[in-house]
């Protein structure tokens, strides 16, 4: 058996993060722009006005440029579960693989089939047929998001499964609970509507540029109106589902919530920190150094957001490690890190003995060890952790990512409201400052999406599967140098393709919709 190489874990994580972050640059625009172009084509089919067809075709071209690179990064993501997370693939593949396969069967074929009609079918199929293909393309993309987010939600909140010591893996026992999990449903709507927001920001920003340049004014006004109405609805939905996310995180991943807020010691009626500076002097989770400097607080708000009760107790990082607290939803005393670690090690040792008993064909011992595994399995993953600090995600990264994301979310709502106000007054094109703001909001839209995923994914470290499988037990047995080479290979490739994508988009935008 090979030796465990800690740098392998970090490089494997880095490679996955690299691919996921690049992938998420392209997917949300596909989701958002897809809806906007479909709305425009629907208006064209309803009214017969060629201007709407032109607008739809222009945004479809941009969609196609973006879609291609999303596909390129997506394939690497799927196969990396096997190439870099081989133990993970076996340990939970019985559950995790199903949504990926269903995604392929139900969503990818739908996308691949109808996108060709959408791009090449303008002169070959009827208007109605084409419109259906456009909507089915975006439906395919959205269904694809559903399945991958169901899978992701399950990693954060594993349910509908049981551990089978004979096969040494978790096995699905309730598919419906995976699909209908409130965490999954909320995650789906939050991620998809955030994609809609980016699509709206993108269209509004590009349209603002045309208005600033006094080019394609009619097209730009049409586009910015559709984008702003759609964007406002989407941002409100994102805010609503974001609240749902915080609520679910409080229940299922209290450590993540504590890290998001830089909360070390919990209290009843915990305030929400709107903004602050993470104190670099805080070195230990249990020292008495103030964790956040110059915090701007809303009294009791975190308790309300996390537990729907202004006076609820919200555990902090130190509480979660020390254990012994209760919450309004769970009146049993929380276990400490050491207790969980003990249970995890007991379960792992019992599994070892179970496998020995299996070889000896000792049925009595098998039953005994299985009972021990079952009793301690909830914290199986803690058995691989060494010290309490191993269970704490990176506080400054998560804290700032979370707060910046929230600030940006409220800024987007305000932006769409102001655009719609001036559009209603029919003086939008005269508000140059607003048009510049809309243009420079495009990168902020991308930033907000990336920050959201940093909170979701880095915030759940060290877990590949919450409480059950940490990343160090999920990896493949390969040389670190191999992962380093592929990391840089993909870094160079994705960066080059990104540069190509941005340049092509800019050229298309400069050309404008006239030729369509």
């Amino acid at each position, binding site marked *: 058996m090979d*030796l465990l190489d800690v740098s392998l874990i970090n490089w494997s994580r880095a490679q996955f993060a690299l691919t996921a972050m690049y992938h998420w640059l392209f997917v949300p625009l596909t989701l958002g722009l897809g809806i906007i172009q479909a709305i425009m084509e629907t208006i064209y089919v309803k009214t017969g006005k060629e201007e709407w067809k032109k607008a739809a075709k222009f945004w479809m071209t941009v969609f196609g440029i973006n879609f291609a690179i999303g596909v390129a990064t997506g394939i690497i993501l799927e196969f990396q579960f096997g190439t870099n997370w081989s133990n993970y693939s076996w340990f939970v593949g019985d559950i995790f693989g199903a949504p*990926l396969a269903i995604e392929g069967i139900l969503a990818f074929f739908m996308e691949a089939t109808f996108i060709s009609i959408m791009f090449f*079918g303008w002169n070959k199929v009827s208007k109605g047929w084409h419109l259906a293909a456009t909507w089915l393309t975006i439906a395919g993309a959205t269904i694809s998001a559903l399945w991958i987010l169901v899978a992701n939600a399950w990693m954060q909140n594993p349910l509908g499964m049981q551990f089978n010591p004979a096969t040494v893996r978790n096995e699905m026992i309730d598919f419906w609970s995976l699909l209908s999990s409130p965490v999954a449903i909320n995650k789906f709507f939050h991620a998809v509507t955030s994609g809609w927001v980016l699509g709206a920001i993108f269209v509004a920003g590009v349209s603002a540029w045309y208005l600033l340049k006094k080019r394609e004014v009619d097209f730009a006004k049409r586009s910015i109106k559709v984008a702003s109405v759609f964007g406002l609805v989407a941002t409100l939905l994102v805010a609503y589902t974001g609240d749902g996310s915080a609520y679910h995180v409080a229940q299922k991943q209290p450590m993540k919530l504590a890290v998001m807020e830089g909360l070390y010691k919990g209290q009843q009626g915990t305030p929400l920190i709107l903004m602050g500076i993470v104190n670099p002097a805080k070195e230990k989770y249990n020292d008495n150094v103030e964790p956040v400097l110059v915090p701007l607080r809303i009294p009791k708000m975190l308790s309300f957001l996390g537990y729907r009760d202004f006076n609820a107790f919200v555990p902090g990082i130190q509480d979660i490690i020390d254990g012994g607290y209760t919450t309004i939803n769970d009146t049993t005393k929380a276990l400490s890190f050491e207790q969980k670690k003990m249970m995890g090690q007991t379960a792992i040792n019992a599994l070892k003995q179970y496998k020995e008993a299996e070889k000896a064909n000792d049925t009595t011992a098998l039953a005994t060890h299985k009972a021990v595994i079952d009793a301690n399995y909830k914290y199986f993953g803690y058995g691989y952790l060494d010290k309490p600090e191993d269970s704490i995600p990176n506080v400054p990264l998560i804290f700032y990512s979370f707060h910046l994301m929230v600030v940006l979310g409220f800024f987007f709502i305000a932006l769409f409201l102001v655009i719609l106000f001036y559009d209603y007054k029919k003086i939008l094109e005269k508000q140059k400052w607003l048009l510049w703001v809309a243009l420079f909001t495009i990168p902020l839209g991308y930033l907000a999406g990336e920050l959201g995923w940093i909170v979701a994914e880095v915030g759940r470290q060290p877990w590949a599967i919450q409480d059950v499988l940490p990343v160090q037990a999920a990896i493949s047995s390969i040389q670190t140098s191999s992962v380093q080479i592929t990391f840089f290979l993909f870094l160079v490739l994705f960066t080059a393709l990104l540069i190509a994508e941005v340049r*092509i988009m800019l050229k298309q935008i400069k050309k404008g919709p006239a030729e369509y």
Partner: protein
Amino acid sequence: MITYSFLQHYWWFLISLLAGILSFLLFVQGGQSMIFSLGKTEDQRRLLVNVLGKKWEYTFTTLVTFGGAFFASFPLFYSTSFGGAYWVWMLILFCFTIQAVSYEYQNKPGRFFSTNTYRSFLFINGLLGTFLLGAAIATFFTGSEFTVNKQNITEFGGQLSPVISQWDNPLHGLEALFDVRNWLFGLAVFFLARTLAVLFFKNRLNNNEIESRLHKVLAVNAVPFLVFFLAFVIWTLFADGFAVKPGTNEVFMEPMKYLNNLLQMPLLLICFLVGVVLVLFGIIKSFLKDSWRKGIWYAGAGTIITVTTLFLVAGYNGTAYYPSTSDLQSSLTIFNSSSSFFTLKVMSLVSLLIPFIAVYIFFAWRALESTHTSIEEINEKDSHAY
């Protein structure tokens, strides 16, 4: 009665069918490897790119679905092969990643790389993607060096790696290239993809100059395909195979195992022969009769049937489909590597939608291909032409 064993066989059949469909759709890759040689002028190359460009996503999607379905139904294969033969799979992924943008970007203003660079990406995908996929699949018959020990996961807190599947060769998959039989199948897949591409071009193109070259190109690719394919098949049928002893599940080497499988499963033998005959019919009639354009459908159907059958031969009738040459008992079978009964049942229900998907693909394909594609059409009528 739906038993666990039935579902394991059913899912191996679906995996095999997906592999068959993927092999057929590799005509896109085959065509990409001929863009520079078959197209002599820029217009001709653009024409080839555009007829292939309407189909590349089918191949790509089938590959992704093949991976996803393998993960869901036989996760131990996914973890052992992908995590072990790291370099082969990474190279394959790399080839397909550079393909995904190359159609859309190659003629757009501001494309960063030149048009020919993107076409070179397509060429690399066509050359290496097909060959490496073939070589990787050949290891289903020739074996790989790995061990599976599920007890490894109980290693914690110490220095030992808790990884269940360990690859025993430091080349992590590239060692497959030292086996002649893997080369034979890799080359067979490469030339098959090119042969199918010629038949596809024959079916789709409206261009006298390119069509006049197809006759010769068909022969140049079909002959090596047949040589490499027959060499691989004959060698494999008469070689020792990885058999599983009923009852004990012990893996052992059985002389002429794959030939025995065909003989003991006559339906598969018939399918295999029908598949081969269809491929030969599609190729030979296309070669003999220039005006006949339907060869792609015969050879395509034959490819699907033949490859599906080869996969079934590798997994059915007490055979280890992913054998280990380092430790025979670590070899993967459809029984020891599959998902649970419940998961296979859920997935099987979803698989009932596959015919529905096939129907809409059929109608969409037909809607776009009512006429043959010419240079005039892509230059004048197609606003999204590459």
